[in-house]
C-alpha cells in the first residue's frame, strides 16, 4: 500500500464485510511524542476469540473463497517498519478496533495520502452505513460525521455525487487548517 489512506480504505473493508453499520476512523498526530496513531473501530460481528491471535497472519482469513488475507498483515508491516506496532481488540457480537501506531517522523512512515478520496469513496459506495472521521494534530481537530450530514441533507442521499465532491474538498481543507502532516518531516526537509 502506497499510503495510510489506502490502508484505511482496506481495513474498513473488513468492517463492512463484518456487517458494521458504524465505522469510526481516528488519526491522531501527537507531535511532541513523535507519534501517529491510526484507529479503525466498528460495530460489526467481531472476530472469534480463537482467531484473534492469528489475524495478522497473511494466511489466515475468515473468507471461504481462498486462504489469504493481506489487509491487516500489510498494515502491521507498515507500522513495525517505523518503530510502531499493530493491535487488534475484538469482542464477538460487539465489534472490532484496529490500532496502528507509527513513529511520526520515521523515514519509512507512509505518507497520509488522500483521505478525502478514501472517505468519499467509502461513503458514496456505502450510503446506508455511517462513518466518522476524526483527525487530530495535538489539540486541533477536524471532524466529519455522516450522521450529522444525514440530518442536514434530509432527503438527499449520501451517494449523491455532490456529496462525494463535498467530502473530498471538506477533508482537504479541514486537514490543511489543522496542519495535518502528509509526509514525515525528514522527507519534507529533503525535498
Amino acid at each position, binding site marked *: 500500500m502506497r499510503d495510510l489512506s*489506502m490502508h484505511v480504505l482496506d481495513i474498513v473493508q473488513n468492517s463492512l464485510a463484518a456487517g458494521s453499520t458504524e465505522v469510526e476512523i481516528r488519526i491522531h498526530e501527537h507531535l511532541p511524542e513523535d507519534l501517529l496513531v491510526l484507529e479503525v473501530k466498528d460495530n460489526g460481528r467481531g472476530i472469534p476469540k480463537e482467531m484473534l491471535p492469528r489475524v495478522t497472519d497473511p494466511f489466515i482469513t475468515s473468507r471461504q473463497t*481462498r486462504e489469504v488475507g493481506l489487509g491487516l498483515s500489510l498494515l502491521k508491516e507498515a507500522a513495525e517498519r517505523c518503530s510502531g506496532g499493530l493491535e487488534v481488540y475484538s469482542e464477538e457480537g460487539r465489534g472490532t478496533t484496529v490500532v496502528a501506531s507509527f513513529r511520526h517522523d520515521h523515514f519509512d512512515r507512509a505518507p497520509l495520502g488522500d483521505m478525502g478520496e478514501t472517505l468519499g469513496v467509502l461513503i458514496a459506495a456505502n450510503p446506508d452505513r455511517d462513518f466518522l472521521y476524526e483527525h487530530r494534530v495535538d489539540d486541533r481537530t477536524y*471532524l466529519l460525521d455522516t450522521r450529522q450530514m444525514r440530518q442536514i*441533507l434530509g*432527503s438527499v442521499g449520501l451517494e449523491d455525487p455532490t456529496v*462525494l465532491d*463535498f467530502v473530498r474538498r471538506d477533508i482537504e481543507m479541514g486537514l490543511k487548517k489543522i496542519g495535518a502532516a502528509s509526509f514525515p518531516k525528514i522527507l519534507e526537509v529533503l525535498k
Partner: protein
Amino acid sequence: MNIEELKKIREKVQKEMNLRSGEKPIKVVVGMGTCGIAAGARPVMAAIKEHLAQQQAENVSVVQSGCAGFCEQEPLVDVFRPGEKKVTYGKVSPDKARRIVAEHVIGGKPVSEFIFAQEP
C-alpha cells in the same frame, strides 16, 4: 465540517431531485479488495462517479465488491446493463474508466480492448 455548504448542497440537490426518476437499472461494480485498492481501485471509482455526474447519468448505481480472485487483473470493473450479459474490465485506470462510462455504461457499446471477461 462545513455545515453551511452542506445546507446549500441540500437546497440545490433537492430542487434537481424532483426532475429525476428513482430507478437505477444499470449497475457498475468496482473490486475493492486489498489487491484492488493496491492496484488503484479508489481513483477508478472516484472517476466513475465523477464522470457519471458530469454526464448526468442518474440511472446508474456504483457499488463495491471484494476480491474476485483475479488479483493480477485489478482494478476490475463489472458493468451490468439490463437484458445484457455482464462485462468485466481488467487493469482499469481512471482514463479507461471514463471511456467505459461514456461508451458502455451510457452508450451501450462495450469497450472491447479493455475487456477481461464476458459472461458466456
